[in-house]
């Protein structure tokens, strides 16, 4: 897991050690380990929304469900691409993330991820803890626990980004919760 443990953690007070969990089978742990490595690679330096989605696509179940603050749940690979990734990378083209820590318990994986990007001239950092539920080695659900205020504040202080941000929000408001 060089990708994960070699992440060069500096900001986090926690260690970047991987963890096994009580109740994990060897197979489940191996699946989690593989998934986290893929996740770390996908977030390390995405080129754009579509290459980002292309990377993740084989690792999602068709009906994958994504739950995150400020946005309605996103269900399915197409929705992930069109309603989550494209608006996000449109707003933050240089968005990237570093896995700082992870833990697995059966089919559930927790990943602590440091996200960094720039909106206008405003750089921001925020940290998220994602809970991924795997089925047959592919994600069936992702719940993101994070405080999105660093991103929203960067938007608020970068007026040129407002149209893109409002567009993404309006798109979200149109969708059923």
């Amino acid at each position, binding site marked *: 897991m060089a990708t994960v443990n070699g992440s060069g953690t500096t900001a986090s007070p926690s260690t970047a050690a991987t963890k096994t969990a009580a109740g*994990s*089978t060897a197979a489940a742990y191996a699946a989690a380990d593989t998934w986290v490595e893929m996740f770390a690679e996908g977030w390390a330096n995405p080129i754009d929304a579509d290459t980002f989605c292309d990377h993740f696509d084989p690792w999602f179940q068709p009906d994958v469900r994504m739950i995150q603050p*400020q946005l309605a749940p996103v269900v399915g690979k197409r929705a992930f691409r069109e309603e989550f990734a494209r608006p996000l990378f449109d707003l933050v083209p240089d968005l990237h993330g570093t896995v700082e820590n992870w833990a697995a318990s059966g089919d559930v994986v927790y990943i602590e991820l440091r996200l960094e990007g720039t909106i206008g001239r405003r750089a921001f950092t925020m940290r998220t803890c994602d809970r991924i539920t795997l089925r047959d080695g592919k994600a069936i659900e992702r719940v993101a626990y994070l405080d999105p205020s660093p991103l929203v504040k960067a938007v608020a202080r970068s007026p040129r980004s407002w149209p893109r941000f409002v567009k993404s929000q309006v798109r979200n408001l149109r969708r059923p919760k």
Partner: protein
Amino acid sequence: MTIQTEDSTAIRELAARYGDAWNTQDLDAIIELHTEDSVFQAHAAGSPPAEGKRAVRDAFAGYLALLPDINFAERSLHVGEDHWVLESTMTGTVAQAIEVEGVDPAAVFVAAVDEGRGARVEVPCVDVIEVRDGLVASKQTYLDSMLMQRQLGGE
């Protein structure tokens, strides 16, 4: 193969004691379960990390003063050999006026408000707890502070 150790049982017991200490708002009992070099960070609203037992205690005291009836209702608990992860719903009643920074995603503005006393907050929360020598060495808390701000009237 199932990875199940005596350590994980001990950590499960520690998690229960730690949760009880928080849900009875007993600061001494909470901090007694921390290592001297504990670190704590709430990843919300730009909260700085607290490093060292005294700083962690001060940070926790601030939360308990703000939300004297703070409670973490467990939704799921995952225990490992040197850690646990708790998903909970954090609730509490705001006991003091606080300044929150409101950011309305629709209108895109930032404003400071000084209100919230008596408001009830209820937010999903996840704690990643690392354990060393039978004590809490690190507590990383993730929650959506914007949701809390909305509940405090900070939009």
